[in-house]
């Protein structure tokens, strides 16, 4: 063969091509290993993460989620001064008390029969809006003729309808 023939260089081109191909395959392999499946579905992030956030369990069901089993408390509460205070705010989330899939009670609902519960909202504080009903608890109990005990508030107020 004529040593001047351009085919003499075909070997080099071929080698370079093989090398390039190998690099390309390595890149694609690496990409498929390290880039998550749903990457870029909606933007520069893993698309499946959106669904994962959406599928988290619901734990607070609102007052209506208690109505089915506690209609007396529900009705009393809805007509009282505490209507705007959620059941779950004083007790706890429904999902910790009832298995929402089975509809069965799985744990006791906390009952905070203590003036500390009332004080969370009604203890007089300088930073509280002045028009919100708040009391100097000790003074309030004594001046109404009560005894200042840990569950004093319940002697005179029903938590579900305090007036």
């Amino acid at each position, binding site marked *: 063969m004529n040593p001047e023939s351009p085919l003499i260089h075909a070997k080099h081109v071929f080698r370079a091509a093989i090398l390039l191909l190998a690099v390309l395959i390595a890149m694609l392999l690496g990409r498929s290993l390290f880039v998550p499946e749903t990457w870029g579905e909606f933007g520069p*992030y893993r698309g499946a993460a959106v669904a994962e956030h*959406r599928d988290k369990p619901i734990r607070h069901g609102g007052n209506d989620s208690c109505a089915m089993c506690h209609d007396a408390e529900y009705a009393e509460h809805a007509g009282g001064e505490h209507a705007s205070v959620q059941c779950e705010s004083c007790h706890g989330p429904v999902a910790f008390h009832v298995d929402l899939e089975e509809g069965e009670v799985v744990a006791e609902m906390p009952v905070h029969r203590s003036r500390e519960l009332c004080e969370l909202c009604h203890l007089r504080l300088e930073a509280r809006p002045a028009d919100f009903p708040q009391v100097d608890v000790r003074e309030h109990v004594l001046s109404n003729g009560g005894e200042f005990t840990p569950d004093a508030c319940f002697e005179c107020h029903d938590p579900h309808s305090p007036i």
Partner: protein
Amino acid sequence: MARHDKDSARPLIPISRREFLNRSSSALAGSMVIALILPEGSSAGIAGADYDWDRHRWVYLIDTTKCIGCGSCVRACRAENSVPEDMYRTWVERYEIPAEGEAFIDSPDGAEHGFDPVATGLSVRKGFFVPKLCNHCDATPCIQVCPVGASFATRDGVVLVDPEHCIGCGYCVQACPYGSRFINPTTHTADKCTLCYHRITTGRKTACVEICPVGARRLGDRKNPDDEVIEILATQRVEVLQPELLTRPQAFYLGLDMEVR
């Protein structure tokens, strides 16, 4: 929402149709019980799994003149989202401001156990509570600094973290000017308020909004033409935290004071 129904051909996110069918048939029995106990969400335009994120744009409104600092929101957030102890996705700050001199600011345990009276020694002339949470900024530095794309914004305006992809480097925690992020000590990944994405996409309010006894926290939807919160943003004087940073927060405040950062 006649206006919204027109473009119902748009793809539903984030569950693909087939995946949804597969899942729903197996979960049917369970979901019927859930439907009995959990009242259906009432937010306009949402119907069960048919959530279309192009039809919502969530915003948040905080009325500091109403907040009583009871901490119900902090407790509800922790319970709803399994927020680890000593970490907070939302918290409440107390401000007691004298006529002259330094203001007194505190947030004991993020207000999880409410507030006790404090003897500040100041002659306080104004006091108030300021609930805080992620501002879900439109131009947020936390997404920009993430080296791996684990922080992102959904099309309906919620800034989220992908805990699977996060490497826990903490850049975003540093970058957030509002202190809204932390490294979760259990998963060692960045953690933050999700605006209860699992709730707002199923027609519910966020846990903190739902639990607030005085309506100090509210959720709004810019794409709902009848939204009361959007009406307030349009007609009243609202502020955002640190507007000079140009992060375009989507949490708006009524009754903010210049002491609040």
